[in-house]
């Protein structure tokens, strides 16, 4: 784990490259790759930093990972960094998906392609689950009680009761922030 004493501050080109890599590898969701790149490989963010940044980005509307590229980029290199990270993340997937769409009729209806896609989707689900487990870990080690009391109901409200995310956010966030406010004293 490279989250040690010496904090690394990436340049804009480094941000562009890192997010380009994430965008290109992010089959079935970029989040697992974002965490791996930013936390585990480059050590630009600690595990807690990553969770907190993600939380900020999830509390905003819009694609979370795109918001995250802007926030992480801005944090290290201001608006240039934000632009570099955003462009890096979006450019390759944009070109690939438009290219795929132009080839659609010929490519996607073969049995082999469909088989590959089903297995790919299953593996991507596994990756997403593993990333989730890694994100739950720091919460459970640092604030186990309030962590469970907030994560559990937030999960149940969205997954089981299927309430709109904005409502769940509006109720759960003030309670959770309030609890943390008391704890921080």
């Amino acid at each position: 784990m490279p989250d040690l004493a010496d904090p690394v501050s990436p340049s804009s080109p480094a941000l562009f490259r890192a997010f380009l890599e994430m965008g290109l590898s992010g089959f079935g969701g970029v989040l697992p790759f974002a965490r791996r790149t930013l936390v585990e490989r480059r050590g630009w963010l600690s595990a807690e930093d990553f969770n907190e940044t993600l939380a900020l980005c999830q509390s905003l509307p819009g694609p979370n990972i795109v918001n995250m590229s802007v926030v992480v980029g801005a944090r290290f290199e201001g608006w240039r960094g934000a632009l570099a990270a955003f462009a890096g993340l979006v450019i390759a997937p944009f070109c690939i998906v438009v290219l795929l769409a132009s080839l659609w009729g010929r490519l996607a209806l073969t049995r082999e392609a469909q088989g590959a896609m089903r297995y790919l989707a299953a593996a991507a689900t596994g990756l997403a689950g593993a990333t989730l487990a890694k994100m739950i870990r720091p919460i459970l080690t640092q604030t186990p009680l309030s962590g469970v009391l907030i994560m559990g109901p937030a999960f149940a409200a969205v997954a089981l009761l299927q309430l709109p995310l904005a409502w769940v956010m509006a109720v759960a966030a003030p309670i959770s922030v309030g609890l943390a406010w008391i704890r921080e004293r």
Partner: protein
Amino acid sequence: MKPINPILGVIAFQFAALSLLAFGGANTVIPEMHRLAVERRHWMSDTDFVALFALSQAAPGPNFLISTLVGWKVAGLAGALVATLAMCGPTCLLAYLLAKVWERYKHTRWRKAFAAGLSPVAVGMGAATFWLLARAADTGVILIAVAGVSAIAVLFTRLNPVVILVLAAVLGVIGTL
């Protein structure tokens, strides 16, 4: 000079509005996007939309790509570009402005409380999104095993996830032969 296609303005406005509703990520507005493209604007058939969605899932990258493809279907490359920028622009600006505040007050008590408090909410909602996606996925003993092995490999080895995905895709092709 070629006049600018007025439909681009419509795309820009509609996707910017959608992005501002997308609390919890781009996936949450896919039903709304479907209503917009198929029922309200008659840009495409239901089957077209589903095909575009599958395509967007098959490509690497963030999950807003479905909006890129809707734009592409309606107005070609320009449409794809406008839809993508409209889907990302407004919220990126918001994120940028908030990020500055977020950094500046890094060491204050309310900022710490905000960060520590938002984390479990976000992770709980992330778990819910994962649950809903996993339930919608194809099942079957082999596919569940593939998912399980992938998860274990990511948690307990330093294997690059791309390797896992490629292996899974190869397995999928072999399975159909």
